[in-house]
């Protein structure tokens, strides 16, 4: 008898794991407006539709705006969880559950869904082709499958700049004005030279880490990344990727990295206590810097990163094929993703728009913040995404990025020698993508 007892738990684990996906689909829904009780006929654009969003993107405010504009509409909003949790729940739903009518998908998760476009409504059939021209080309192409169908409309992008401490720069004898700083580090070599100067003057590290702040920036300033335009893997042969990687290794070897990984326990305190003077600043992380280091108000500046262009993050909004009320969902997209609506949403929540004209609007370009010494944040962010190159992202783009990034992180913790970092990164990726 005891023997069978010993077998049981191991089986259970497997089942528990398979239950995780099912559990992800069991969501606590918060209804923004209670259903009127009348059952809507199919095709009714005001029918109650379900909307899955992730947290922290201001979905509740968007839905409230929508209901203010369209009093007859009914929206059932679920803030599922993090971007990854939302993608996991969506995968479970698409694989055989109840799908939402409308869903947000974050950029890193997008390729997996774009690879299987038959799971989503081709938005061209609802009028998305006309709409697509309004948005940044690379953001639309990220949601366009190889057969040409557009599965998502870009809701926002992650404009990228660098944040630096003007007070620490001044103490180290470096310029403090954002325009001068941007000019001095217009190339990554200039960035490293500035860092060496800073570290020599203060004895302190310059940049928080090399994997996210440097590599994540450099590897996205390319015209071709891990895949060739026709979808072949080129991460190990593409000289642009190797060059981007080498910049990170060079930064590390210069001895100017504080070796504090993003989101590790030392990251937020480091912003407050001057353990480093430069950190990465995607548009959605600005509020994070403010809350991490309230005492440094007025000391931070935001300026363009070295090289040309940048983007980190951004999302699209999509309608699953089996949605019960695609028309209602489409009406929401049309209303809330228009150029004007994205500008409005930026004003209320600071979410950087993906619509081209919205990015050139006065509201975005003139955006400043006292906390960041009235730096031209709006212009920096807008320029970075308008100058961003379009390149093809395949299904394994995030896995490849993680493999290379992990090698750099291991280099920083001393587990991989700088000379071996590239080989280790390529091996990580080979293991991951087979």
């Amino acid at each position: 008898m005891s023997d069978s007892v010993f077998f049981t738990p191991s089986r259970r684990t497997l089942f528990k794991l398979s239950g995780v996906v099912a559990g992800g689909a069991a969501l606590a829904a918060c209804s923004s407006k209670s259903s009127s009780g009348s059952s809507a006929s199919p095709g009714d654009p005001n029918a109650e539709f379900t909307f899955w969003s992730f947290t922290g993107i201001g979905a509740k405010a968007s839905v409230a705006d929508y209901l203010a504009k369209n009093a007859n509409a009914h929206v059932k909003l679920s803030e599922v969880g993090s971007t990854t949790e939302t993608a996991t729940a969506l995968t479970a739903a698409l694989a055989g559950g109840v799908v939402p009518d409308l869903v947000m998908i974050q950029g890193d998760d997008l390729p997996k869904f774009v690879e299987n476009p038959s799971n989503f409504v081709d938005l061209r059939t609802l009028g998305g082709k006309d709409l697509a021209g309004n948005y940044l080309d690379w953001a639309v192409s990220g949601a366009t499958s190889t057969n040409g169908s557009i599965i998502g409309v870009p809701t926002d992008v992650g404009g990228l700049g660098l944040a630096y401490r003007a007070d620490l720069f001044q103490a180290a004898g470096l310029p403090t004005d954002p325009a001068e700083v941007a000019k001095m580090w217009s190339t990554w070599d200039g960035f490293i030279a500035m860092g060496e100067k800073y570290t020599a003057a203060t004895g302190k590290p310059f940049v928080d880490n090399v994997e996210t702040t440097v590599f994540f920036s450099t590897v996205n300033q390319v015209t071709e990344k891990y895949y060739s335009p026709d979808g072949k893997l080129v991460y190990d042969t593409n000289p642009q990727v190797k060059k981007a990687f080498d910049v990170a290794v060079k930064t590390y070897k210069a001895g100017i990295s504080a070796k504090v990984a993003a989101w590790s326990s030392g990251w937020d305190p480091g912003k407050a206590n001057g353990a480093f003077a430069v950190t990465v600043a995607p548009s959605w992380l600005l509020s994070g810097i403010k809350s991490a280091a309230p005492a440094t108000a007025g000391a931070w500046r935001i300026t363009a990163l070295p090289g040309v262009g940048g983007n980190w993050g951004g999302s699209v909004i999509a309608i699953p094929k089996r949605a019960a009320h695609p028309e209602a969902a489409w009406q929401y997209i049309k209303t809330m993703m228009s150029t004007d609506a994205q500008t409005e949403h930026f004003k209320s929540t600071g979410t950087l728009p993906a619509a081209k004209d919205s990015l050139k609007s006065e509201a975005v370009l003139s955006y400043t913040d006292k906390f960041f010494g009235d730096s031209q944040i709006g212009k920096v962010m807008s320029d970075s995404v308008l100058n961003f190159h379009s390149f093809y992202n395949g299904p394994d783009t995030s896995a490849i990025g993680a493999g290379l990034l992990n090698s750099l992180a291991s280099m920083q913790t001393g587990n991989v020698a700088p000379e071996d970092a590239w080989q280790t990164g390529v091996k990580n990726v080979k293991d991951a993508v087979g």
Partner: protein
Amino acid sequence: MSATTTQVPPHRERKQPGQQPTRVRSSFLERAAPYAYVAPFFIIFGIFGLFPLVFTFFVSLFDWNPIGAHTFVGLANFERLLHDSRFWNALGNTFGIFVISTIPQLLLALGLAQLLNHARLRWANFFRMSMLLPFITSVAATALVFGQIFDRNFGLINWILGLLHLDPINFLASRLGSWVEISAMVTWRWFGYNTLLYLAGLQAIPREMYEAASVDGANGWQKFTRLTIPSMRPVIIFTVIMSTIGGLQIFTEPLLVAPESGLTCGAARQCQTLALFLYEQGFGQFKFGYGSAIGVALFVIVVVAALINFFLTTRTRGAR
């Protein structure tokens, strides 16, 4: 088992003329009733236990994208697994963490059980009950607290090292360091449970045997090694087996050990266990086929471990 036979009345008591149909029906119901009573378990086990198990074997033969194509690939997933350094790394981590969490844990539990069994211990029940507190605390809460104790920048341990003017240790960065951190969590969670099992084992040893040993002139240590340990052998083997099974499944601790460590438990996968590797492949990357193959491999490993345990158990029985 004997209870069912005694409670069903013998058939011949009901054999009365004119009640033929009722007799047939009730006899059928009577025979079916026990099966109906146990059916809920088997139905639920079949749906949530047996089916997923068989289905996992089935899926492991496919390149299975949950929202795309399911392509039959035969044993290709297993072939890849054998050549996947990440799999062997995870296997090594699993056994490494298992060894450094189980051995000190069981020794600690044995020592504590001896103390708790002391005749002159006051408030014995209070101490015995408090042993279980870590066990009933949520794993996630434990992981958060230990994450802070071992933290590189602001952890308690590094704060003490700082007071002693020693360099801080980045536990998570190294393989051994991260193993130690996770093992500490596992030990904290399970030592009380094992202590109580050992305590029960100790209390089952008749006092007369100790008295007899004293008469024979045995000292304390001899009593412990010659009398206590052999008498406790079944309990010790039980705890070793339970720890083996628990150890092979370690999942939550490496998942929650640090917010930045992700599904790989660190940039170099330094503390990724088999269960976490399975989760990363299946639910992080949506490679259901490959994830299932890892699940099957884990199943085989547990079966082998259980067979070894079975062998040990029967050998002990034979020795007695």
